[in-house]
């Protein structure tokens, strides 16, 4: 089902009720995670909550930055947070910021700025129309642009990872092992003269495929295992494992952040496309989450990957290929996972308090290869500290 259809299905007006044998591929309010502004809002709220509880996860360093929960670049909503943004901008005036429309995809409407004058339009609106409700279409988020991305072969790339969520409460999510990296066709340069060149900065295939040097055989894509091999060979095993551990961590945290507000309808499952950028200090940043990741393919390998993705997703969401009963406990047997591995299973994590210590030690030696080690939620902190 597309997002529009989902909106209709779950809207109060139509009075449509899903019967027990119907399962749909979106959560009713998935936009809490997949709209750029709501995602940031939920994560900020989650962090504050943890801080209030005094949880060790919310620990901060001397500069006031979260030690474990700082994985989203500094972001503000425009026009609502315009003044807050200006304050932050003035603190580091040579920084670059990226403007993204909240509700769009495929890199549409995105541009970079490095001067306040370039976004005066949003400041005027906030002064004059503070009582007029902003239409969704005009809302933008502005984030600090990561201008030191990790470059391979001199090019910028980002990671696209697929994460399947079968239920939010208890949280059960799976990570697809075959994610990929999307490379820009043009060499990266942070120089201000190329700020307008989207081929340098935006990795969306929808944009890159119009570039001169786009190659249809490999599509500018690398598998995650290639990335791993390259990083292990050039940077060493420990930092690479740490990087991948952190990536798993931020995915789980982002899901935990929206879990309380998510309508955990038992008819629903969802496969998200996570976009992650790694900077040159090997720190991963969560850029956004897509509710309808592109399932079209640009190359032959791509087609095979997406076919398997859909196959494995449906195998997990709808067991045995039979007519589903939404009341089932959503615990698929190990054999059907296919190329998915369990990223986090809240039930399992809470279930074995005694086993947790053992699990975390195992997690350290087996590393991210054994996805099951992710089950011990809290205990995994010991590997990351």
């Amino acid at each position, binding site marked *: 089902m597309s997002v529009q259809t989902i909106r209709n299905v779950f809207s109060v007006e139509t009075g449509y009720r899903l019967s027990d044998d119907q399962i749909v591929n979106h959560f009713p309010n998935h936009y809490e995670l997949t709209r750029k502004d709501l995602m940031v809002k939920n994560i900020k709220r989650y962090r504050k909550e943890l801080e209030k509880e005094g949880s060790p996860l919310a620990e901060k360093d001397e500069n006031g930055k979260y030690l474990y929960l700082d994985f989203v670049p500094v972001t503000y909503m425009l026009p609502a947070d315009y003044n807050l943004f200006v304050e932050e901008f003035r603190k580091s005036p040579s920084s670059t910021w990226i403007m993204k429309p909240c509700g769009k995809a495929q890199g549409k409407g995105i541009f970079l700025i490095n001067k306040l004058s370039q976004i005066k339009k949003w400041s005027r609106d906030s002064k004059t129309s503070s009582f007029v409700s902003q239409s969704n279409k005009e809302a933008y988020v502005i984030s600090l642009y990561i201008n030191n991305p990790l470059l*391979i*072969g*001199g*090019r910028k790339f980002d990671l696209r990872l697929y994460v399947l969520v079968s239920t939010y409460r208890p949280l059960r999510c799976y990570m697809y092992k075959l994610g990929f990296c999307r*490379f820009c066709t*043009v*060499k990266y340069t942070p120089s201000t003269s190329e700020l307008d060149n989207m081929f340098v900065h935006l990795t969306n295939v929808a944009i890159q495929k119009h570039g*001169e*040097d786009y*190659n249809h*055989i*490999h599509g*500018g*894509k*690398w598998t995650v*295992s*290639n990335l791993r*091999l*390259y990083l*292990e*060979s*050039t940077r*060493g*095993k*420990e930092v690479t494992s740490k990087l991948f551990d952190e990536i798993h961590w931020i995915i789980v945290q982002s899901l935990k952040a929206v879990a309380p507000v998510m309508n955990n309808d038992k008819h629903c499952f969802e496969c998200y496309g996570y976009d992650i950028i790694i900077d040159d200090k090997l720190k991963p940043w969560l850029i956004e989450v897509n509710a309808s990741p592109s399932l079209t393919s640009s190359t032959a*390998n791509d087609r095979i990957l997406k076919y398997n993705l859909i196959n494995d997703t449906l195998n997990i969401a709808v067991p045995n290929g039979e007519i589903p009963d939404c009341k089932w406990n959503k615990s698929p047997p190990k054999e059907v996972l296919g190329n998915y591995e369990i990223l986090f299973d809240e039930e399992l994590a809470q279930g074995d308090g005694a086993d947790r210590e053992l699990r975390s030690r195992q997690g350290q*030696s*087996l590393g991210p*290869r*054994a996805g099951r080690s992710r089950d011990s939620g809290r205990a995994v902190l010991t590997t990351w500290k």
Partner: protein
Amino acid sequence: MLQEESDLSLIIAQIVQKLKGSNLYSQLERQAWASLQRPEIKLESLKEDIKEFFKISGWEKKLQNAVYSELSVFPLPSHPAAPPEHLKEPLVYMRKAQGSWEKRILKSLNSMCTELSIPLARKRPVGEQKELLNKWNEMGTDEPDLSLFRPVYAPKDFLEVLINLRNPNYENGDSLSFRTHLGLIQVPLKVKDIPELKECFVELGLNIGQLGIDDSTQVPPELFENEHVRIGQKVLAEQDSAAAQQYIRQGSPTALRAELWALILNISSQPEDVLYYEQLKTNVIQHDLLVDSLIYKDVKLTASNDDYYFVFEDYLYQVLLCFSRDTSVLSHFAYNSASPPKSYIRGKLGLEEYAVFYPPNGVIPFHGFSMYVAPLCFLYHEPSKLYQIFREMYVRFFFRLHSISSHPSGIVSLCLLFETLLQTYLPQLFYHLREIGAQPLRISFKWMVRAFSGYLATDQLLLLWDRILGYNSLEILAVLAAAVFAFRAVNLMEVTSLAAAEAVLADLSTLKVMPLLQIFLFATVT
């Protein structure tokens, strides 16, 4: 006994001669002079004290590594009065064949040159030089018109030459007899059979841990992997080339591989090396060579379209363009059966004083040449180090894959080894393929010439190249080729044409190299 001793002293003398001209020698000399300041060096026992000092400070190890490195390419002991051609290649008919092949290549190159009326070399105008310097890191985006260029030759052309190699002293007779070869290669070279290979590759045996097999997710790392990594780190700490070479026969952990290969190839990035690379870069900027276009074309045709290597396109240009101007590569022709092609300054054809080697490094690239460099980009991202590693790999191993020689690691021997293995251990398959006109060598030749680069997944390829370095031999390529055929034997028995056989073997990217090798060598019922 006496003969061996005199052989040994001859070898020692030759190595000393070689090393005297090297950087290491001057460094050792400097160190020796500097050590005179140290209190433990006494005049009475000067020689012993300095030797002791070298041992402690690690300089002896460096010298050991250098000697070991020389030995690895040292030609087999021969008669002291043997002429230099014999060091290149002892068999006359092979030399002749290589000579005529070279003439053909050069003719093809020259005719392309006159056809397109492009000079073999020209000096770049200043404007062009500046432009190239600016674009040095992204030469991939500069798309000169390459449509008129063709690669000078492709592996299959070379295969035809090898097929027609004959030893004039070997009487085969016109009719088929037990002496004629069933395969394509018709020269009687000695190749190893499986029992001999088992002895040679003993570390790949079933009861010995391997990376590529015993590090898979099902095997707990305490069993082998952890210990192996620990030993690897120790080897690196000791900086011992010979130990590293022994160690790597069981595979190299990904994190240690870059350093291990550098140690085995005896590459250390000294400032002089970086300077040398910069000098080569300047040469590239100042002069344009015809082979540059060939290199461009090759990269665009092969690496740019490869799923694994397209990212490193620009590095490939940086390495290969410098490589073709590197005259130090000429020294490897002393033990290479090939000879660098000569060209003459315009108008002075035939006059020896005006002869130059073209290209300056004497190596004319062929279709697929850039794939020798591509896998190395996964290990080294610093251009001068990448360059050094590639150059050393070339002058130790890769040159043997495209020159006609009788060396056991030369391509002719590899082909014969492959065919013999297949005939001996999979006779039914071999016969079937031959009957349908699909001689196995026609399919596996391209794998071996490229050392499987571009055919295997990169992590598997690196495991294979670990073993090439470990055993200092390319024979493993032929063994792997045979193992692949053995693995796909069931499907191959059902095909009825060469095209169908090619299709069965078209995609090797899912193969796991080490299990295939192990099974073929140690677990096949004969």
